């Protein structure tokens, strides 16, 4: 029997809307879950997905992808890559798995919302596959790190992190809860797939795949490349939804969701990916600075994606372009200085050679972040370790839940962006974070940041020990310097040379 070509039947087969008679349209597609934006069902039937795939095709391709990634892992299991890897690279893996793996499972639930509640049949089909993608990503990114749990307790955070009140995880959950767990189907398609996945996962997955291959970790490189091929398909779910909204006079609502999600994604990547690229990755393996990578892979591509869609650049684009050269340096210094509160071991990344690289990539680094590092380095070299750790909490933003920071030293520009709302004083890390909150204050107002929780007496005793217990960081899991301060020897030698001369 002759088989029809896919395109001869696909559109008809996925035309699965009908006119309900036993229930109303709103009962079939509750607006709160569906997100109809006041548009009737037939407006959503014009949704046309650019990437059409059938279930049998999906299964075949995914089977091949899994076979590839799992066989590379199996082949390299005895290669002792983990044991021999640079400690900075291990930290990259730990940070990535903890922040991402369980979030992938959560994303399966968000895809399932589009699958059930979207009025667009094409979206329902695409997100059925997207949901299966996310389950696969969750499973792989828990299975792959599991072989290392017996060697290194921090690897257990691949599974554990999402259930904890560790500050970075509070930030990650706050963001993902906002863009994908508590939004209607259409908003999920805009905020998760178009804004976060099209805009940013390229960076985490393509950039890291390249770094992993450079570092000789082919298992990790294959794993995340395999994931990225799924991302590049299901990231396209949001585009046609934006098109429907814009054609039906809903551009302002669409733009607002893009603007909120892009900013939140940027802040999360500034703490997760920025330090990895510019500080943790061994100098000889760095291809591009974080800023260069952002400019090539995020800024240029995302600008094109937005304008192709008929959207504007977010109103804060100039602020964003400035921030990509600054914010992640502060996020790195914060996660390094407060290193007992993270589940990986931050690499300082500030040897003289690394500083020369930072100064070349970010002119003025030595006069700004370098000035703070000078003090930290002196304390480490002098063995004055008590001063190389904090004794209080950094103040965190009530929107992104990350430390409120800016440029230090000679260009000191740190600033709080406060807002009083219903008698409570909120603090924000930027004008944009505050703007995001103001778009729907009741959505965010009840959330307590880690500092709010501390002040409310929820963290006891009110000291570092109490904070670590609250964050579920057990002994053996708390972060410390990735290289056990071996880098300080270079500075000791420099001092000795200087003294001798």
């Amino acid at each position, binding site marked *: 029997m002759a088989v029809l070509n896919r395109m001869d039947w696909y559109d008809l087969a996925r035309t699965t809307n009908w006119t309900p008679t036993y229930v109303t349209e709103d009962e079939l597609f509750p607006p709160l879950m569906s997100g109809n934006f006041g548009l009737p069902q037939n407006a959503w039937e014009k949704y046309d997905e650019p990437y059409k795939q059938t279930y049998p095709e999906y299964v075949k391709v995914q089977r091949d992808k899994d076979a590839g990634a799992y066989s590379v892992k199996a082949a390299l299991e005895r290669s002792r890559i983990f044991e021999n890897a640079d400690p900075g690279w291990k930290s990259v893996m730990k940070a990535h798995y903890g922040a991402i793996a369980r979030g992938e499972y959560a994303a399966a639930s968000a895809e399932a919302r589009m699958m059930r509640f979207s009025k667009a049949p094409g979206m329902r089909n695409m997100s059925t596959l997207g949901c299966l993608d996310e389950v696969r990503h969750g499973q792989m990114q828990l299975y792959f790190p599991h072989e290392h749990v017996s060697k290194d307790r921090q690897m257990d955070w691949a599974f554990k992190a999402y259930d904890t009140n560790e500050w970075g995880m509070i930030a990650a959950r706050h963001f993902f809860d906002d863009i994908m767990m508590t939004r209607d189907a259409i908003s999920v398609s805009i905020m998760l797939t178009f804004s976060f996945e099209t805009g940013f996962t390229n960076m985490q997955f393509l950039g890291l795949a390249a770094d992993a291959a450079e570092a000789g970790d082919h298992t990790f490189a294959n794993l995340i490349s395999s994931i990225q091929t799924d991302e590049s398909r299901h990231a396209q779910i949001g585009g046609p939804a934006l098109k429907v909204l814009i054609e039906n006079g809903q551009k302002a609502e669409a733009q607002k969701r893009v603007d909120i999600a892009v900013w939140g994604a940027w802040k999360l990547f500034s703490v997760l990916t920025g330090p990895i690229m510019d500080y943790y990755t061994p100098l000889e393996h760095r291809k591009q600075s974080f800023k260069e990578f952002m400019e090539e892979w995020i800024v240029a591509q995302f600008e094109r994606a937005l304008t192709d869609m008929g959207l504007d650049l977010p109103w804060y684009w100039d602020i964003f372009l400035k921030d990509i050269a600054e914010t992640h340096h502060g996020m790195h210094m914060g996660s390094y200085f407060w290193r007992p509160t993270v589940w990986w071991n931050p690499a300082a990344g500030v040897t003289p050679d690394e500083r020369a690289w930072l100064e070349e990539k970010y002119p003025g680094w030595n006069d700004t972040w370098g000035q703070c590092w000078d*003090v930290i380095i002196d304390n480490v070299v002098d063995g004055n370790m008590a001063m190389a750790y904090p004794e209080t909490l950094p103040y965190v933003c009530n929107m992104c839940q990350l430390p409120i920071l800016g440029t230090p030293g000679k260009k000191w520009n740190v600033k709080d962006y406060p807002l009083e709302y219903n008698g409570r004083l909120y603090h924000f890390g930027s004008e944009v974070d505050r703007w995001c909150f103001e778009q729907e204050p009741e959505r965010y107002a009840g959330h307590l940041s880690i500092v709010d929780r501390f002040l409310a007496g929820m963290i006891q005793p009110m000291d570092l020990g109490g904070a670590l217990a609250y964050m579920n960081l057990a002994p053996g899991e708390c972060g410390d310097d990735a290289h056990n301060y071996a880098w300080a020897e270079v500075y000791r030698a420099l001092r000795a040379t200087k003294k001798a001369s």
Partner: protein
Amino acid sequence: MALFPITSNFEGDFVLQLVAVDTENTMDEVAAAAAHHSVGRRVRARPGQILRVRRQGSEECFPRSMKLGEAGLKPTETVEIIWEAPKH
């Protein structure tokens, strides 16, 4: 006397920090409490200079002997801790 949290924005440092002070503390004592978390950790001491406290965005510092409770600050409000060279 009451414990009072402020947010310290310390000149030359990179991050805001929570600092526990008391409404009876003078502004010099507030500055010293903030300095404990910045100076010698990420900011170099500046011998001969003193530290002043001002509301964020204000050009004018609070009087050094003013008590925190008299400054009209809200709990967790951000104050800037600024280096000041001695006046000759």
